[in-house]
């Protein structure tokens, strides 16, 4: 006997029943099959509850109970877009590609709408995502309409690509489930600076899934600035596979949204591959942000670095779960994971769960977690030099974040990130 589904899950399944013949790829057998299988998984699991170990610290009831419509048709009205960080830009509104706002034509790589090119993506769509294991990926697979497909040819330096996601304010909240496929062929490089945002009053669910393949010796820098509307939900699931000698460098800023989750599954599949997963969560009263990482060391001589910092004020709640799985074959693994939280309020809460599973014997793996408040001696030192208390506090919070921000090497990415962090502060002050 299965437990009754939350309204939200039923709603999404009904929507799928109504839309199945009209969703992109409805006439492609393999797409249909993916969607039907995902729908079965989602029907069986529904929205994850706290009984599921992976969701123990994040309660999705407010998402499940909300009830969402699909987005309205895109209006042609021009949007005021934030200034781009790079030369190329892909813009999505409510999960749908806005060709008119994007500029990709002159790029040295191929980037296009997923919906438009679905027929050619059988080997890529679903290659990494695991809808049977991750219910949010199942929901995405069942209902995705569009996404960005990027292919950087072998040896090409792709430069900086902006990926912008805009949520809209509508009478009834909308849910959108973009599926982004990113592939770097051998020796290629690319920096993606992704911004997800929406107007202050907008309530929506942004449920993206990423499938990212980093080829041999390729380097992908991926900065994600999550600055969703304070009433919105973002539940993102990212899958990355890194081939021999390749590097995947992810930095995620969780600064907006009512309830957000940044879930990353990365696999180091070839020798001497590297993965950096870093991030900062800046949380205000009423926000809940969850960073969950699963890192597979599946080849020898790979290195991974994770540094996550969370600043919590008011009645906010942060979650960090980080699992590192070192397979038996992964000798000489060099792994490091650190997560630190700074509590600015007695009502804030952080849950932190590092997990190391090591099956190889020649391994250097370390992890650490700290939770603290602003250091009274440091605060007094600054004030004793004439620096007013609010300024002194903000300096110490910035210093706390500095270590996580400094790991971002790419200049454009770093500038975008620093601007986002400063913006959070100015709004907080």
């Amino acid at each position: 006997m299965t437990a009754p589904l939350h309204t939200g899950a039923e709603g999404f399944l009904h929507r799928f029943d109504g839309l199945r013949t009209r969703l992109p790829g409805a006439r492609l057998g393999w797409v249909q099959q993916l969607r039907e299988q995902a729908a079965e998984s989602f029907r069986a699991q529904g929205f994850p509850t706290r009984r599921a170990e992976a969701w123990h610290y994040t309660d999705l009831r407010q998402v499940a109970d909300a009830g969402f419509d699909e987005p309205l048709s895109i209006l042609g009205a021009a949007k005021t877009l934030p200034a781009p960080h790079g030369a190329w830009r892909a813009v999505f509104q409510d999960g749908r590609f806005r060709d008119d706002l994007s500029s990709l034509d002159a790029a040295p790589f191929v980037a296009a709408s997923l919906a438009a090119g679905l027929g050619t993506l059988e080997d890529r769509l679903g290659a990494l995502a695991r809808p049977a294991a991750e219910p949010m990926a199942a929901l995405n697979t069942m209902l995705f309409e569009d996404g960005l497909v990027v292919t950087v040819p072998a040896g090409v330096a792709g430069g900086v690509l902006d990926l912008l996601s805009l949520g809209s304010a509508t009478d009834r909240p909308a849910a959108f489930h973009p599926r982004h496929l990113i592939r770097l062929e051998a020796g290629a490089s690319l920096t993606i600076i992704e911004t997800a945002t929406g107007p202050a009053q907008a309530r929506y669910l942004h449920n993206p899934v990423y499938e990212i393949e980093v080829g041999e010796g390729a380097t992908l820098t991926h900065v994600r600035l999550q600055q969703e509307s304070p009433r919105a939900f973002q539940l993102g699931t990212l899958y990355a596979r890194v081939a021999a000698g390749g590097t995947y460098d992810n930095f995620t800023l969780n600064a907006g949204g009512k309830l957000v989750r940044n879930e990353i599954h990365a696999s180091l599949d070839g020798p001497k591959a590297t993965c950096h997963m870093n991030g900062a969560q800046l949380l205000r009263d009423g926000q809940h942000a969850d960073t969950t990482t699963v890192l597979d060391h599946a080849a020898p001589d790979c290195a991974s670095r994770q540094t996550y910092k969370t600043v919590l004020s008011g009645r906010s709640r942060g979650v960090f779960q980080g699992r590192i799985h070192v397979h038996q074959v992964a000798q000489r693994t060099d792994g490091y994971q650190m997560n630190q939280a700074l509590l600015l309020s007695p009502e804030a809460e952080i849950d932190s769960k590092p997990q190391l599973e090591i099956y190889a014997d020649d391994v250097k793996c370390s992890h650490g977690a700290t939770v603290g408040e602003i250091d009274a001696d440091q605060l007094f030192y600054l004030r004793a030099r004439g620096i007013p208390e609010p300024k002194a506090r903000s300096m110490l919070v910035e210093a706390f974040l500095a270590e996580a921000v400094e790991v971002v090497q790419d200049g454009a990415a770093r500038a975008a990130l620093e601007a986002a962090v400063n913006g959070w502060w100015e709004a907080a002050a």
Partner: protein
Amino acid sequence: MLKIEGLTAEVDGKPILNGIDLEVPAGGIHAIMGPNGSGKSTLSYVLAGREGYEITGGSVTFDGIDLLALEPEERAASGLFLAFQYPVELPGVGNALFLRTALNAIRRHRGEPELDAMQFLKVARQRMQALSMPEDMLRRGVNVGFSGGEKKRNEVLQMALLQPRLAILDETDSGLDIDALKIVAEGVNALRAPDFSALVITHYQRLLDYIVPDRVHVLMGGRIVQSGGPELAQQLEASGYASVQAAA
């Protein structure tokens, strides 16, 4: 300039200062000497406004203003400076940003225009040269990875930049070799002026060879038990605090 009357203070319910009376006039350099645990550091923290000390009696005025009613940053803005015995490390806060933020906070309070990064660098470089400080100390985190001597020099650099009217030097000589000691002393002597006063807190007489005080006070058991001229410091060096204790 600084007037302390009958000051008593406790930490965690334990009395540390037991009635301090002290007056430092404008332009005066006073030394406070005393054995470990006599209340020297407590006195300096109480004057600077650190939390965790309960004032149970007495008063402190600074140019006639009730110092104890002010927040630490207000005391600093009014011209009080504490050179810390143990300067605090601030990982992630660049020394240049720290110094400029502090200087501009004080300048704002004085009604002076703030310095931009270039103007600040010019001023800071001059001061650092005088203290034989390498310029890369500006780029590092505040006191992070600094040697004991570098930390103390960084304190004196802050003092030189902020131009206080009353400097409290809390065992600034501890951990310094003789060359560093001279540099620090020169830094303090350079500020000597008719409207600059200093309270030099030290365990040893050594520093007072280079910063010559007008008056020396001996602090024991949270009270000033003896006061005299600079010769008192030499006397203490020769005979130790036990002789004072016996006399008191």
